[in-house]
C-alpha cells in the first residue's frame, strides 16, 4: 500500500511529469496517505458486480461515416507553441 520513492519516480515517468528527487519523498508520503484512505473499499464485497464506466444508459451513438468538419488547419495551428509550413514542430524524434 505504501508507495516508495522508486514507485513515485516510475509513475512520474509513466505520466511524463518531471518530479525532482527532492519532491519524491513528500509525494510518496502524500500519495500513500491517499491510497491508505482509499483502501477502505476492500471492506465492500463486490464479487459478481458489473463495473460501471458510465451512468449514461445508452449504447454509443453511431453516425454516417462522412466528413463533417475540416479545412481549418490555420485555426488548429493558431495555438501551437511552435509551427512551420502547416505542421506542429517538436524536438527531433528520429536520428
Amino acid at each position, binding site marked *: 500500500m505504501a*508507495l516508495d520513492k522508486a514507485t513515485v519516480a516510475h509513475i512520474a515517468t509513466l505520466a511524463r*511529469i518531471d*518530479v525532482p528527487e527532492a519532491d519524491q519523498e513528500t509525494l510518496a508520503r502524500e500519495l500513500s496517505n491517499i491510497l491508505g484512505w482509499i483502501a477502505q*473499499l476492500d471492506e465492500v464485497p463486490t464479487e459478481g*458486480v458489473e463495473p460501471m464506466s458510465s*451512468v449514461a444508459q445508452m449504447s454509443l451513438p453511431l453516425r454516417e461515416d462522412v466528413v463533417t468538419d475540416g479545412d481549418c488547419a490555420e485555426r488548429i495551428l493558431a*495555438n501551437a507553441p511552435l509551427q512551420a509550413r502547416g505542421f*506542429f514542430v517538436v524536438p527531433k*524524434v528520429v536520428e
Partner: protein
Amino acid sequence: MTALTELSLAAARDGLRRKAFSARELAAAHVKAVEAARPLNAYLAETPERALAMADASDRRIGRGEALPLEGIPLAIKDLFCTEGVATTAGSRILGGFVPPYESTVTANLWRAGAVMLGKVNMDEFAMGSANVTSAYGAVESPWRRRGENRPLVPGGSSGGSAAAVAARAAIAATGTDTGGSIRQPASFCGIVGLKPTYGRCSRWGVVAFASSLDQAGPMTRTVRDAAIMLGAMAGHDPKDSTSAPVPVPDFEPAVERPVKGLRIGIPREYRLDGMPAEIEALWRQGVSWLEAQGATAVEIGLPLTKYALPAYYIIAPAEASSNLARYDGVRFGLRVPCDSIDGMYEQTRAAGFGAEVRRRILIGTYVLSAGYFDAYYLKAQRVRTLIARDFDAAFRSCDAILTPTAPSAAFAIGEKMNDPVAMYLNDVFTVPSSLAGLPAISVPAGLSEDGLPLGLQVIGRAFDEEGMLSVAAALERAAGFAAMPAFLAGSAA
C-alpha cells in the same frame, strides 16, 4: 427602483421586456460591478466591450418584439468553458495563452438564447479542488466574512469564481461545472443556488475535461427560479457529445410553482456523520420541518454505501483525469518548456504547467491504472460505483426526492485545510455520491452558521427529474426566506 445589479434573472428578464430599462443599462451596471469586484480575484478575463455589443443586439431584438429566453442577461462564464476568441485557462498555467478557436456547446446555447458575456471566472486548476486555492492565477476570496472578523474566506470550489461573482452581485448568474460537488459546495459557501443537472442533460463539448464520466455543467444563480430558467437554455442533446442524452428539454420554470404536498422526502440515515457540526444537523432538521409544513412526508431511507463514495470517487476521478490531461504535451496549445528531447519536453512542460494538486491526482490516476493495480483499484471502484447507483435506485422506490446538507461545514479561511489533501476531499462527502450515480442535485441557501456564514441544503432528484427536484428546492427557498447579504457587494459599489 432596485439597483440593476440586485435583480434576479427572472426580474431582469421581465424588466427588459417591459422596457423598464435597456439591456445596455443592465450590462453597463454589471460591467462596473465586475470592475468593483477585482479585489475578489473572481474574474480572470473581463469582456466589457463584448458585453455591451451583445447587450445592444439584445436591445434591437427587444425593440422588434423578438426577445429570446435569456435576452440581455449578463453572465459570468467559468474558465473551463471554451469561448471563441477569449482566453480559456482552466485555472492552469499549462493553458496560459490558449485562445479557443471554437465555442463550447453550452455557452453557444446561452448566447443563442440572448445572454450577455461579462467575462471568464476563476476556478480551481482543472476543477480539482474545493476551496478555489489551487488556481494558478491566485485564490478567489469569498465576498462573505465571519461576523466580527475580517479574515478572507474561501468561496468553495471548484466553481469558486462563479459563486463569488454571483454572490457579490458582479453577475446575475454564472455557469459552473460539477464533477464531485464543484457547483453545489461553492453555492452553499456563498449563499447562492447551484444546480448540477442529470449526467447527460448538458453537453460537455468544449468544456475542458476533468473526469468525463462525472463532469456536468450547470447554472449558479441567486434564486431557484433563475436556476430553472438558465438550465433550460443550457441543456439539450448535442451530437458532438456521445454521452449527451437524446431527451427533450422541458420548460423547467413552472416546476418552481409546483406544490410539494404529498411528496415523499427521503432522509438518508447514513448522512448523519459522526462529528457533524450541530448547526448543520439542526438546519437539516429544519429543512425537513419546512417541507412537512408544506404537506410533504419525510421518510427515512438507507444509502448504505455512502461512506465508500468518496474513496471510490478518488480513484475514478483521478484515473479519468490522468487520461484526459495526457493531451497537455506542449505540442498543440498552451505552455511549452523547450528541451532537446521530446520526452524531456513533455516532462518539463508538464512539471512546469501543472500545480501540486493536479500533479498529485495525475500521479494517483496513473498509479491506479498501471499494470498490476488496475483490477485492485480501478475496477474495484467501478464496481462500488455500481452498488452506489443501485442504493439510490432502491431509495427512490420509497421517496420522490432526497434532502441532505450540501457540505459538512460553512466556508473556512484561506490557508486552512491546505496541508492535508484527504481533509480537503471530505468537503464533498454529501455531494459525491449523487455525482457517481449521475443524479441531478441542487444546493439552496437555507440559513446562517453561528458566525454568520451561509449554509446550504441539497435536494437530490431522480435521473432527468430536475422538475421534481426544483419543486422541492423552491419549497425550501420559500420557507427559508434567505435574505442575508455578503459583506462585500460589488454591485452597490458600482
